[in-house]
């Protein structure tokens, strides 16, 4: 072997040894990393939502694939029923609901935290009455149906308060929203505080509108409540849920009129009609609601609680749900990390 090739061979051997040493370190690092991974991946957060235009962006996010893979399992609530049971147990980790329902859940002893405000009702919730009853004051001595522990109960109470009508002057019929059209048609109630499909049915039965949520703007809102324990154990999933909703809402806002919407929980026409009477919360509004441990939300909840207490629907010292702005801020950071986000979600 010539001197040159001998030198080259020696150099190659030295180089190979260096490469070998580095490969060995790399190999052991890889094995150590893989071996330390216990193979357990955090389960997705189970989120319940009923069919409502304000929550529809959650389904759009699912259809558009905006949730990080394996982070969110969306469950459509057929009716309001079962949600309390699901939240009490371990079936559901989070749910989209009205603020009123969140308050009632808290009163029931569920440890929940509000992390997002979806929308506020701007006429989507209405107080309807038979022909001949033209004002709220006209309800004195009448039977009024409503799901009292929900937003409809709150709307009714606010209408009475505005009209300076005492709750004692009328008779309350506490019933599920879906049952109200039948009760109205049967003459068992003279007025109904309702929303959605039930509202349309009651209107069809000849009712006229006395009051609506547009008369008390910003008071009837929908929120995302998460079991506090889940918020602590699976913060990444909660953030992914909020980020998916923000991205979907942003996409829908910019969605072309002539293009079919992504698949949601409700028919497109119903959605488009309902969303007109809703105000979807902007980033700034959400920040304002959630800031300072939810001071703004707390004021609303306290008012609601006071009204409910008058009707003895709730205890005066009932516990309010907690409010956390951190998941929303982290979701925003996550989105802004990949692309610039406008003020409007």
């Amino acid at each position, binding site marked *: 072997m010539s001197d040159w090739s001998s030198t080259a061979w020696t150099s190659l051997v030295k180089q190979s*040894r260096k490469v070998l040493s580095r490969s060995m370190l790399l190999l052991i690092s890889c094995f150590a990393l893989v*071996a330390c991974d216990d*193979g357990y991946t955090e389960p997705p957060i*189970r989120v319940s939502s009923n069919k409502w235009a304000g929550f529809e962006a959650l*389904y759009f996010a699912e259809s558009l694939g905006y949730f990080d893979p394996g982070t969110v*399992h969306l469950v*459509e609530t057929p009716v309001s029923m079962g949600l309390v049971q699901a939240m009490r147990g371990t079936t559901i980790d989070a749910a989209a609901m009205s603020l009123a329902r969140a308050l009632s859940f808290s009163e029931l002893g569920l440890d929940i935290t509000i992390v997002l405000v979806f929308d506020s009702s701007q006429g989507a919730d209405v107080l309807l009455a038979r022909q001949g009853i033209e004002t709220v004051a006209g309800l004195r001595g009448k039977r009024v149906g409503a799901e009292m522990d929900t937003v409809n109960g709150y709307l009714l109470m606010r209408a009475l308060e505005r009209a300076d009508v005492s709750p004692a002057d009328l008779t309350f019929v506490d019933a599920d929203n879906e049952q109200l059209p039948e009760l109205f048609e049967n003459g068992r109630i003279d007025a109904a505080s309702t929303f959605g499909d039930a509202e349309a049915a009651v209107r069809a039965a000849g009712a006229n509108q006395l009051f609506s949520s547009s008369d008390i703007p910003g008071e009837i809102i929908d929120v995302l409540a998460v079991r506090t324990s889940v918020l602590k154990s699976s913060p990444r999933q909660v953030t992914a849920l909020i980020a998916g909703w923000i991205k979907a809402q942003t996409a829908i806002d910019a969605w072309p009129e002539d293009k079919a919407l992504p698949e949601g*929980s*409700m028919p497109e026409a119903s959605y488009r009609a309902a969303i007109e009477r809703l105000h979807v919360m902007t980033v700034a509004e959400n920040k304002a609601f959630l800031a300072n441990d939810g001071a703004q939300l707390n004021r609303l909840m306290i008012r609601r609680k006071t009204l409910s207490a008058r009707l003895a629907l709730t205890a005066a010292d009932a516990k309010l749900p907690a409010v956390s702005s951190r998941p929303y801020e982290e979701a925003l950071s996550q989105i802004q990390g990949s692309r610039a986000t406008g003020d409007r979600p």
Partner: protein
Amino acid sequence: MINLPLRHLIPLLFAAAGLIIVGAHSFYSAPKTRDQALRFATNQAETELQSLQGRLNQSLTEGDLDLTARDMFFSAADPKVQAIFLFDDTDNVLKAHRSRYHGRSVSDLPFTLDAERLKNARRSGAIDLEIAPSTPSTLIGYAGLYADSPDGSSAKLAIVIVWDYSRLLHEVTRIAAQPAELLTTLLIGLALLITFVISRRLTKRLEPIIDAASRIGRGETEVKTELDGQDEFADMSRAIDAMAVQVDSAKQALADALNEAELANASKSAFLSSISREVRTPLSSVVGFLDLVAEEQLDDETAMMVSAAQASANALTLLINDLLDMSRIESGEMDAQSQPFCLTMAVQAVVDATIHRAQEKGLFLRVRANKNDPIWLMGDESIVRQVFLKLTEAGLAVAETGGVTLEIQLSGQPRETRVSLSMATTGGGIPFALLDQIRRGELPASLEGVTGWQTAALCLTFLRHYTAILGGELSIVGTPGAGLRFAIDFQSEQTTAMPILGKESVSDFGEKRLVVLVADSSHANRLLLSTMLSKWHHHVVAVNTGTDALEELQKRLVYGNLDPFDLIIVDQHLCDMSGVELARDIKGISDSYADTPIIGLSTEEHGAMMQSDDTLFDQILVAPLDRVELKETLFRLSHKRRKESGSSDVKSGSLEGAL
């Protein structure tokens, strides 16, 4: 294959073992685990489906669709459930996990359901599970339902659940893989630990041994590793220590032998040198007196005998010169001087000295040169003359017919001249074996029918040394039947011609009577010099000690009636002091003697006299004295004094004209 060090080999082997374990898991254990997990999942799904079937049968029989929806809601809340459908008796969706699917037919769903299985389940009320063909981790369960009405009629419905078990299967497989991966990690970690420990131990134990071996390799012998213990390294250490002792003994013995040999050689050289000098002094007288006798008018018979005696004396002189040269070469005392000399004259002198031997053998002796004018070079004339002499002697020794040609070739620029001195014989030739022997510098034994090769080989020995001193190259070419050729090439510098005396000038010198002081401890030499100088009509004062010489010189300073000395001749060795010391003392007596020429007589060309201060001696003559050289020197030096006092008649001329 690269010879890997242990610190790489051990982790590599352990890593390979780990990879085999991981590979075995990936190709055997993992699929098995996955199959088992899937079987378990299937059972679980079947149980879940059965449970739901029971609840739905109940709620449907009760006509409570809200309860049905609630049960479906709770089932749908399971993250494994991708979809859940309640089909009516026409296979349209009655309830689903998403209300948007309500009313759709089985074929209008984003899930590939088996319509046949659905029908069978609905018809029989049985439970049927399948693994989705496209995604093996997806299970689809079909279950038939009965909704009995109070009127006794019964509706046949069906429930379908789609489960995604991919996450569960992945987790189970990963968990099953963990032991293999942990074991591999531990193996590699263990390997690194073992390597570290072994490497440290090896380094600690081997370092002193390697260091000792390196030091022994560098020639050090006072090496002790002295490793403790009973292991192989301790054995190796003891072996290295023993080897160091052995090497030390051998080295000492070798040094002793070398010292002894050097001493013996030095003694031999000193003896040779001493003997040669001792022989040279009387020989100088013999040659000188023979020359003087030869100048006399002799009858033919006496002249023939004197001539024979002269030839023998000259041969003896050459022999003595060789002996002196050899001793000087061996002792490293011979250096090349750098003085201008005439190369042409040097070769001619050799030819003059050896022509009679060529004539005796009936050979010709020619000189060729590629330059017609006399060649003057810077260098050592005596060595160059010896080169020519040895070339000639070698040629004459081996040539049997024809003759010997000496050739001078000059090439290149005057300042960087390549000088080639060569000798070529004609006829004869040399056997190959003999040529190889000569080339190797061996002295060949006498070969029958081959004469003179030992002489040639001896000459070659001298030539090798002279070539080395001149910094040249020696080449030997011999072809059987085509003669022998020796050539020496060396680098020199051409210089301008120096003044050379003509015969006429020397003759003119005879008219000037010089007063010469001769200081020589040899009576014969004093007599020879006195006789020669007297014959040339000079006045000689001869003394045998340095003290006497200085006394004579002092006298000249004191007594004005005594003629001052024109020239002083000093022998190298006087009884009471050396020639160099005397010359130095003479220069120190008075400024009057500062310019008095001093000729040194030496028995060796490179002795102490030659190496003394250049200003002490105007000329150094080497014994045996050459009459012509002495005469020239006397003329030149006396002329120099005259020239310094006003006149000059020195001519420049050629060698042919000079002698």
